[in-house]
């Protein structure tokens, strides 16, 4: 009944481990920062180069970002924007499925998944008032700028920009934003 002691040899252990590593190697190509980390960073930079009228801000002076639709950022945008300031203003992030949910937002990020008609109606709901002061950003939404949205992110990492819509929303766009836009739409959809 007695059992003597034995050791697993080093070679045997190495073999087991290399087997483990081989079996468990999972190939998944990735970008350095993922798509929505890059897009969140772009939103932060857009905010730096857009000037809102002073009356657009309430007492707490926060810059409010509203995410409309199914949030593709997860906790990335919260982690990235936490304790960061844009022109002295702290971020506040809201999420919602209607414009009403996002009332008071300075930027509305419109996610994918809305139909063309929905986009049109949402944009007109945002801009129907004269003093909306809202920078609308589309997440690669077809005809977003043509339908009156201000910035639409494109798959190549750049964006298109509708300067007339920005003017209507009383937002001043820094020339640096115009420089890097892949396309600038100079007309009013109306």
């Amino acid at each position: 009944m007695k059992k003597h002691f034995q050791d697993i040899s080093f070679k045997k252990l190495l073999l087991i481990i290399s087997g483990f590593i081989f079996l468990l190697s999972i190939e998944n190509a990735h970008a350095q920062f993922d798509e929505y980390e890059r897009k969140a960073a772009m939103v932060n930079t857009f905010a730096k180069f857009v000037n809102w009228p002073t009356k657009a801000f309430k007492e707490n002076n926060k810059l409010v970002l509203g995410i409309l639709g199914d949030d593709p950022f997860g906790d990335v945008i919260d982690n990235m924007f936490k304790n960061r300031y844009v022109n002295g203003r702290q971020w506040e992030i809201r999420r919602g499925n209607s414009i009403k949910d996002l009332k008071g937002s300075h930027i509305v990020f419109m996610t994918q998944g809305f139909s063309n008609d929905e986009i049109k109606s949402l944009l007109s709901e945002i801009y129907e008032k004269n003093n909306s002061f809202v920078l609308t950003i589309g997440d690669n939404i077809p005809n977003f700028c043509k339908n009156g949205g201000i910035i639409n992110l494109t798959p190549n990492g750049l964006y298109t920009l509708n300067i007339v819509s920005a003017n209507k929303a009383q937002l001043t766009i820094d020339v640096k934003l115009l420089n890097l836009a892949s396309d600038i739409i100079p007309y009013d959809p109306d």
Partner: protein
Amino acid sequence: MADIAYQEGNYFLALEKYQKVEIRDMHSCELKYKIAKCYLKSPFKVKEALPYLKYLIQNDCDDVAVDYLYFYAHVLQLQHNYIEAINYYNEYLENETTLKKEFDDVELKIKQCENGIKLGSIQSSSSETTAIMDIPINTSYDESAPIISKRDNFIVFSSKRQVDSYNYVYGDQYAFLPKDLESADRDIYLSYRKGVQFSHPYPQFDGDYREIYPLYVEDGSYMLLYIEYPSDAIDKGNIYETKVKKGRWQKPKKLNSKINSNHTEKGAIIANNGTTIYFSSNRPGGQGGFDLYKSIRVGKDDWSKPINLGPTINGPNDEVFPYVHNDNKTLYYSTNGILSMGGFDIVKSTKEGANWSRPKNLGAHVNSPFNEMQFSQIPSKRYSYFTSDRQDQQSVGGKDIYAIFKPVHKMKRAIVTGKIKVLKNGQSLPITLLVKDNSNITYKKYVYDPSPDVGKFFMILPPSKNYSIIIKYNDSELYTLNIDLPKDTYRYQLDKEFELKEIEVFNKVVGYDVIPNETRFEVTTFDELKNQNQEEVTDARYDALLMLMEMIVDRTDKDGLANLNDLDDPIKDISLPNTSNTSNSPDPYYTPLLDLIEKAFNEADPSLLTSLDSVRGDQGDKVVKVPSLNLKQNVIVEERYYFPEKEFDISTENKLSLNELSTFLKERDNIVLDVVWFSSEDENKTLSSVDQLNEMRMNSILNYLAAKGVSRWKYHIKNKTIKTSQDNACILLSVRIK
């Protein structure tokens, strides 16, 4: 007859008889008292004494000893009902009776109840969990003294199970084991680890013992053990040692009288590479009761005169079963003194210089108001084991063996691996890596340079950070790769190859052209694995990773090995991002990304935006100077061109040199030329005739370079004051890296 059975220690029979009589005499205080006292001896059902003791209290029984108040408080304490227990201990103290009170440790008991309240209210900061070990390690018989091997591959322990029986569990129907199930067998058992379980244990000794349990085991070939032979006085066994020979334990040999006194020894361990023995003894001259002692090995089989560990460790009560961790800095032992919450509790003290720190109770997740003792632990501290006679829903019966598991904090470390190669003329160069994070902290531990042949490198870094990997060759910093490890990364694969070409000017190597090829990288995070339902794979992979780390460290980095455990300890790990950080600083991980995007806008450079999915800082060819050159920073070539007196024409020899320099300059965009001419110091800022000549000499050189096709933007003109004689009649040309 029941009384006789009780006095003989046959509580099973005594209880049976008392209960039979109780049916006829339901209101006898004396009977209730005796039944309660039987239950107090039960290894399974002490709490059954409560209703009998409560009856005595409610009926103010004065024909039995007032000790029932003490017993009632004691059972309440065992049930963790500390506040009620304190009340009844106080009532026992205050009770005026002519009968002698048997117990004089009431104040200690009250203090222990207070400890119980305090320790119970403290949330354990660690995520350690304690669980009873499964059958067949535990049975309804007593199992005790679990000693785990250093590599966690086997455990030895003592059991009083019947050697030839497999019927270990009898349910909870008994207060005492009936006569036919009693076991007279005693042995030390050994069980090998099988994954998370242990295999069937086998007895190791085959003798007649009243008591036998292991104390210390080394490599499976040496054991210290306690043996009480039937010929010994009761509770007066001795400490023995034994070795394995031909797969069997030799006959145990008693340690000499320095260790085994005429009194009792409880527990011993050999520490400090076999040079020191720690043990517990109730020999005279200590602090009271059992005390811990240490003794140094002298020669082959002798020990120095034992030294008492002193009043910080030893108190007026008992200190038993010392266990010294592999680090020789952590001492665990059991005490029934003022640190306990009842019975023996396991406490811990750490070495601070030459002294042991004030011991601390291991907490309510380990200790209970019952007895916890005989602690042992593997070097990584992930698993610890101890004995307890607690009676709760988990316990199997009598003394049981419990395991404390300290989980590995996963997702704290990412493996960064792959290949980095620098080739010169097709030959791979020996390179080293310098790794810094964005707080400029250099990482040396667990950073292993590329192997000279295939360039395979390996490093373990905390994720959620940005790193610069500086590639060095012969003290030259050849290239810097910036990588960002997203949170939850468990692997970052990076492959990069460079070609190194020597830059030769004026027949000497002045620098290197470093030409990178495309960077290949892959990030794999835990989230992706979860999406693929591969959580188990993740666990396994992490276990494999830890083992791999252990091997790599073992082979190359002794210091790293010694500190490997700290990787699992968030408190010791200063390099980890502090998740509880409530400061107002933003997450630095995203700062490089935001800076890069802002730079794209400020410099109107769309390529920075469109290449965000590549490795940052991967900016093409680079020129690196040879470090041995005795030149100012970034300067790779410096040449002085001298002119004959009063002349500004370039000599043929200098023209040849300038031809070579022009060719070199035209080939490269990443270098610039400083053309320095010297003038004498003049407060009026007027040029002397000599200065004018020097300026003309400079113009000759510039014209010559222009004629050779060197563009104007390639050079900068500088004027300096003549400092030494070598500056006379000279134009200095200095080539530097941009």
